[in-house]
């Protein structure tokens, strides 16, 4: 990840009608270019420059920040910061700090999830009790991709300091911000869909159900009622997705045919935890069991503890199976799944970066 100096001019973030803000910002960029020719304008009011070369030349990041801040402040109020990757560097500029190399994840951890600029994701995570980037980053990546989609996964990599930039910070795509909570007009849509015979023909039963569900949406908001769609995938979280009732698609549910190498055969778990539960799997010496680079367990599972609860005796297990086809790829975090039986209970565990999670339960 590139180490970047970011200059943020809070008064120049928004273009004004006569272009004065943009002209001022152009002068800021010009002033900063005196120290480094590779200044990139990120968006109006924010520019960045690579930290490494200039820092060496000017005797460290501290002196560099000092010089850049002085040059920019001569034109307009400016905040300057340094961090790995653009996303963290912009936040560092807002706080006027230099985040040490490799310290991005720790720096980002206390920020609210909302700074990712994905309001729907933030709202969803908030309802799951996750409010900070640190909490979000702690979730296993293999699970996040299934539950929160590719935008969510991009945010997850940024939150964990493993990626420097969200999809496009420079130009928010048109249309992304147009869907507000109130615009969905779900209740009427749902009611209409119900009355027009969502599934083959108008039926009294369908209309009655449509009215009841519309009423619940009025009570809880459009996201309060969801319906499940099956889709292809390997992990249980990937194999279905929930869409709000009003956004459901009129197609019959068929499990998409594979091949999905690594998919665990049926029966599927009846509970897929929205947020995986922390788990601890130890051998009979109390040593943590993990999965080796060759995809084998490093010990014999003996006891399982979930959410720091009491340790239950493991009576049987199956696996591990690599969680995706890029198991060997270096760009991908290794993760694997393991079915674990503790007496009458059975869980599907996911291990990633040496940590175990209960991803699903055969409830």
């Amino acid at each position: 990840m590139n180490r970047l100096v970011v200059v943020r001019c809070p008064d120049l973030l928004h273009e004004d009608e006569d272009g004065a803000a943009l002209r001022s910002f152009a002068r800021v960029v010009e002033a900063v270019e005196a120290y480094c020719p590779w200044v990139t304008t990120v968006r109006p009011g924010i520019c960045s420059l690579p930290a490494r070369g200039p820092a060496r030349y000017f005797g460290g990041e501290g002196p560099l920040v000092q010089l850049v801040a002085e040059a920019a402040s001569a034109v307009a109020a400016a905040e300057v910061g340094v961090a790995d990757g653009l996303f963290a560097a912009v936040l560092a500029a807002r706080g006027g700090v230099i985040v040490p190399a490799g310290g991005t994840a720790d720096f980002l951890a206390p920020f609210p999830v909302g700074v990712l600029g994905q309001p729907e994701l933030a709202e969803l995570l908030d309802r799951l009790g996750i409010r900070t980037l640190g909490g979000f980053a702690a979730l296993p990546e293999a699970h996040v991709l299934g539950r929160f989609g590719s935008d969510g996964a991009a945010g997850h990599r940024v939150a964990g300091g493993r990626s420097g930039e969200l999809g496009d910070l420079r130009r928010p795509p048109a249309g992304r911000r147009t869907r507000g909570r109130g615009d969905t007009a779900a209740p009427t849509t749902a009611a209409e869909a119900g009355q027009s015979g969502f599934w083959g023909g108008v039926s009294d039963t369908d209309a009655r159900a449509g009215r009841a569900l519309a009423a619940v949406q009025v009570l809880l908001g459009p996201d309060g009622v969801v319906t499940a769609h099956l889709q292809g995938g390997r992990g249980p979280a990937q194999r279905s997705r929930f869409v709000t009732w009003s956004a459901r698609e009129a197609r019959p549910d068929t499990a998409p045919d594979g091949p999905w190498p690594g998919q665990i055969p049926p029966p599927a778990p009846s509970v897929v935890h929205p947020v995986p539960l922390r788990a601890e799997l130890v051998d009979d010496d109390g040593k943590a069991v993990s999965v080796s680079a060759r995809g084998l367990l490093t010990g014999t599972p003996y006891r399982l503890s979930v959410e720091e609860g009491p340790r239950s005796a493991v009576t049987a297990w199956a696996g591990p199976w690599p969680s995706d086809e890029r198991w060997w790829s270096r760009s991908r975090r290794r993760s694997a799944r393991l079915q674990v039986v503790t007496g009458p209970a059975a869980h599907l565990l996911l291990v990633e970066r040496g940590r175990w999670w209960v991803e699903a339960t055969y409830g």
Partner: protein
Amino acid sequence: MFVAPPHRPVADTGEPGGPPPGRRLDRHRDLTSLARLAERTRPVSSSQARVLPVAPPLGGLFPGGSLRRGTTIVVGGPDRGTHADRVADGSVSVALALLAAASAAGSWCALVGLAGLGAVAAHEFGIDLARLAVIPRPDAAWAEATALLIDGVDLVVLFPPFPPRHALARRLVARARERRSVLVVVPGRVGWPDPPDLRLSIGEARWEGAGTGEGYLARRWMTVTATGRRSAALPRHHQLWLPSAGGGMAGGSPVGPA
């Protein structure tokens, strides 16, 4: 439209044992009532039917082998263990299995308060996901949401997020009876203060298929005991494969076929 006498399930619905005591019926009326009975117990979940179909492996748990409309059923596992044990006690599977046949026959179902439905498992049990509404996090509005759903959905499964007050539980039960829906409650740790029409208690459970690394979880054998009121007062003990091999459900003893 057929209007049920309020608050009183018709006694002869589930039991083709003959005319109610104290009434003498001639042969003709007997046949008519039998024909009516056949019509009612037909496995079609129109709102006129007094019962909803239930998958054959579960039939033995219910008087008459089907779900009587307007009743409340509580599903629970053994009252012990850690939180993780309780989530795994099989009650979610039993509740989903109860919906399968009615859903396949056209009924709408709703799950209130289950944030982590395994939709693939629901599909494997035979639930039509197109007619399954999930209210994952009703929070404080859980009772209100449940009441609204009872008005329009044949089967409502409630996972109460908070311990319900007795009066509130009774109101929901009365509403289900009045609207002729089936209310299935999976109380977990929070409990359910009102004695239900039928209580399904999961006893033993055992998984097959996994060993020491080899194999896959294949199926779970469990015992379920049904206890109820009136015609269901005698406990019925039942053995089930839930899920059975390949997903779904099957009846049978531990030595039964896969």
